[in-house]
């Protein structure tokens, strides 16, 4: 009786368009199902099964997005929102959903051999991976700042744990703590930014915010601008833009290598999804206010990433700093705030994810048991010891350096085009200079691999899952490097839209 007084007669629950949530449900449902099955029957299941199941779930989520892609690119139906306008399904979100899902597939395949080598195998890694991907997909499809924050937290909490997954390695623990403390801090910034934006516009729904900003001239926009700044801090942390990057090298160096591969691809994709949707799409009318800040962020990110990458001696740290520099290239696309700019970021994310996963796949194999042998010297003579492994790594490094006929070149080219199209020549020049500086770092690794000898002849075991990842990634990098058109077209079709249900 007591409860009856408090509760309303009926709670109005929103209609849920389950079909729109297929990727979310597959990822999250897969995670929960796995946790249950393995806690009940784990001891009877083979050790390779978790990573296979995870890869299958990731693939399932990607395939489950195809019908959404058909629907949103269909001229008659187009983008739509679901679950009381909190989830927006458009080409943009579907594209990133597929990217994030596929990074899960790769990360799972990499983890198989790695976890068994480090004797960490079990379903927990995979469950966390799937949950974080579900969070990432939620971010990519968020149509509401609160949902965005929820997605970010689901993603982040799982990745904090993954960073510390190697429980016998002090660096891994350190990475987890560092990532967690700083990440929690940045989440607070983001949340505060959301609160201020709500205060300024009266809504957390992106469509409403956009409509409000379009139709209203704010006499005093201090609150809104403060909201922008705080949102940018929170999201800048996730995409490791300078000056919010300081966690990146330490966390990348300490975390288990397959986790790093996921962090640099899937997590980054989710971060850029949020950045694009919030700033370019929602706050598009205020572009003049936030563009200068992004300009400065992009320049700093490009240069600091490239310069600090060159002076490192640890390959994981090098790749961490180079990933910062690559984030700078993507920030250029964000700064352009145009259709081409958004498409260039999407293209960059898709191809860079493959590159960075491939790179860390090689690092994870070479680092050896204990995951510690990651200095440049440890790569010496790899060309003689494992020519194909060294060849694959060379492909990824050359692509990251932006050598033509690889996906990396076209990604840079497209980002530059977006910048020039927006008349930001200085930004384009800074970007290319940073690419030259960073090239030195990739050359250093290649010199070690091909031109230096090594007296270390310990066998390097390459697990089957890693072979598959390397093969697919290298073929992707060269194949779509020579014929970039299919992915360019997909990225151009993946336009973001702001729609609420009528």
């Amino acid at each position, binding site marked *: 009786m007591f409860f009856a007084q408090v509760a309303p007669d009926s709670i109005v629950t929103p209609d849920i368009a389950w079909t729109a949530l297929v990727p979310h449900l597959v990822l999250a449902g897969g995670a929960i199902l796995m946790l249950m099955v393995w806690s009940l029957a784990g001891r009877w299941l083979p050790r390779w099964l978790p990573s296979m199941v995870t890869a299958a779930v990731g693939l399932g989520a990607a395939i489950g997005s195809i019908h959404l892609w058909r629907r949103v690119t269909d001229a008659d139906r187009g983008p739509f929102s679901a679950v009381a306008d909190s989830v927006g399904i458009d080409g943009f979100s579907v594209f990133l959903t597929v990217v994030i899902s596929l990074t899960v597939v790769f990360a799972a395949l990499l983890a198989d051999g790695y976890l068994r080598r480090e004797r960490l195998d079990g379903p927990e890694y995979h469950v966390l991976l799937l949950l974080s991907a579900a969070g990432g997909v939620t971010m990519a499809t968020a149509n509401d700042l609160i949902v965005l924050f929820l997605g970010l937290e689901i993603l982040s909490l799982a990745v904090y744990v993954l960073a510390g997954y190697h429980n016998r390695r002090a660096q891994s623990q350190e990475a987890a703590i560092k990532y967690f403390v700083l990440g929690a801090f940045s989440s607070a910034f983001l949340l505060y930014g959301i609160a201020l934006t709500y205060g300024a516009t009266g809504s957390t729904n992106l469509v409403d915010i956009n409509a409000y900003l379009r139709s209203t001239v704010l006499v005093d926009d201090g609150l809104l601008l403060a909201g922008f700044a705080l949102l940018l801090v929170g999201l800048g942390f996730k995409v490791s833009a300078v000056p919010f990057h300081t966690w990146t090298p330490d966390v990348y160096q300490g975390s288990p290598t397959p986790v790093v591969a996921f962090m640099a691809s899937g997590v980054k994709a989710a971060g850029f999804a949020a950045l694009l949707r919030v700033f370019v799409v929602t706050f598009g009318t205020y572009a003049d206010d936030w563009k200068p800040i992004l300009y400065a962020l992009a320049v700093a990110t490009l240069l600091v990433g490239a310069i600090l990458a060159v002076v490192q001696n640890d390959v994981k740290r090098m790749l961490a700093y180079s990933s910062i520099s690559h984030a700078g290239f993507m920030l250029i696309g964000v700064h352009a705030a145009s259709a081409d700019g958004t498409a260039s970021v999407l293209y960059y994310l898709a191809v860079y994810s493959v590159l960075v996963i491939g790179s860390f796949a090689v690092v994870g194999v070479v680092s050896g048991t204990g995951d510690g042998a990651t200095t440049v010297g440890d790569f010496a003579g790899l060309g003689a010891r494992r020519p194909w492994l060294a060849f694959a790594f060379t492909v990824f490094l050359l692509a990251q350096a932006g050598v*033509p006929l690889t996906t990396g070149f076209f990604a*840079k*080219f497209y980002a*530059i*085009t977006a910048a*020039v199209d927006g008349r930001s*020549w200085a930004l384009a020049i800074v970007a290319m200079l940073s690419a*030259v500086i960073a090239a030195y770092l990739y050359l250093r690794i290649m010199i070690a691999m091909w*031109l230096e000898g090594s007296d270390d002849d310990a066998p390097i075991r390459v697990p089957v899952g890693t072979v598959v990842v390397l093969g697919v990634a290298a073929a992707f990098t060269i194949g779509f490097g020579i014929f970039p*058109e299919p992915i360019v077209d997909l990225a151009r079709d993946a336009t973001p839209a702001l729609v609420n249900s009528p």
Partner: protein
Amino acid sequence: MPPVLLAEASFPVIPAMVLTPLVGAVAVALLPRGRARMAQPLAVLFAVVTGAISVWILGDFDTADAGFQFVSEQGWVDALGISWFAGIDGISLFLVVLSGLLFPLAMVAVDPGHDHKAYFAWLLVLEAGCIGVFVALDLFMFFVFFEIVLVPMYFLIGKWGHEDREYAATKFFLYTMFGSALMLVGIVSLVVLHAQGADVDLTFNLVEIAETQALATNSARLIWATFALAFAVKVPMFPVHTWLPDAHTEAPTAGSVILAGVMLKMGTYGFLRFGLYLFPEASTTFAPLMITLGTIGIVYGAVVATMQRDLKRLVAYSSIAHLGFIVLGTFALNTEGIDGGLLQMVNHGISTGALFLLVGFIYERRHTREISELGGLQKSAPLLAGVFVLVMLSSIGLPGLNGFVGEFLVLVGAFNAHRWWAVIAATGVILAALYLLWAYQRVFHGRADGENETMPDLRFKEGLVLAPFVVAIVFLGVYPKPVIERMEPAVDRLVAHIETFVDDFDEPVADDGAGTGFDDIEVEEHDAEEGAADAGTPTEAAEGGAD
């Protein structure tokens, strides 16, 4: 402006020329480990096929046609207006042929010593890249090839080079990448501004952009600067030449031959094809600067070459001087200068390529490049000494050998355009005689002692490799007409193009029009045009030549 003729090829020779070496590279790389000895013959086979195609192109080339021939076009990334668009005209023809012929010779000439498979695979990739640069008529495609050649060359220097190879390879890669990085921004800016200026979709089509000239003067000048920097590094021009001595010296012999023979020409060719053609106004504006830098390069390269103790480094610095001549001729902006520059590109490829081969042969025998440790080789290796003399004289520019024709035309062109620069540049010819003859004296004359006394002479295979060089040196020296008459229409068209689009520019010709003194090596059409130049305004004459 007459529309540029684009003659389609009956058979896709250009794709075949680019793809053959690539297929070869894959085939060589996939040879089973035990069959590594097969790498060289297989690679040479593919290179010879490519060379044969280039010779076929030379034969099938329509001399009278000033436009692009053998054109092949194919969409690539339609959304951004990028396409595979390739063709050959008189400007690129001989560079394509030079690449086609130099590669098989360089492959046969020297044995890399280790890792044969990778070595020959990289050389074939390099060949595809080099040919691609010279045939590309799409800016994106050009940049792709321009940049991709860095990778094989980097590995060739880094893995098969001499002592300081890693340093030299890295320096080479970063230096050239720095130059072209800004050019990428320039290319994209050019394309975007062209699309806005001409109100068309994005297109990377060179001919379309060049013939429209939709850019504002200042934008064109700034973009020209990015192109010029990339080409200047590649040439290399003073003061961005410092990568060259290291790269040339440390590269394996075949690498040096290709670097000097083909890759340096990418810069000078770039100036012609992209600098002058795309930016006529900016090119004329900055011509004095380029001529000054070219002249400095001539004198500087020669002086520094004189000081060298390392024979290979000496040849490397002599390249800087020779390429200064090419830049000088190009930016004289008249038919003689550009003709001479083009001819000099081919000649330099032949002479310096042969010089690097000879130095490589000496190094293989004596394992040193120090001039002071060599001496009296004339006695132990008379044949090698004989070929060296001929090649050296061609490099100095002795009349009757190929080097003379090019340098002479360059100096005539430069004299008509900027008299005093030509005078200074002419001292470069004297200095060339100084450093090369002096080097020859120290290496081949005198008393042979120690190992110098017993150094074996040229082997049969080496002689066979050098024979084409010798033939070319003499043939082009005595009878350069077949080469010049194929270059001439395209060069005339280029000069006319500049005159059309630059209001106050007339082709700098001799004041009296007659006293140039090279009529005997000119072709008829040009004589007629010279006559017209006497009678009418130079603009009309040049346009008449382009029709």
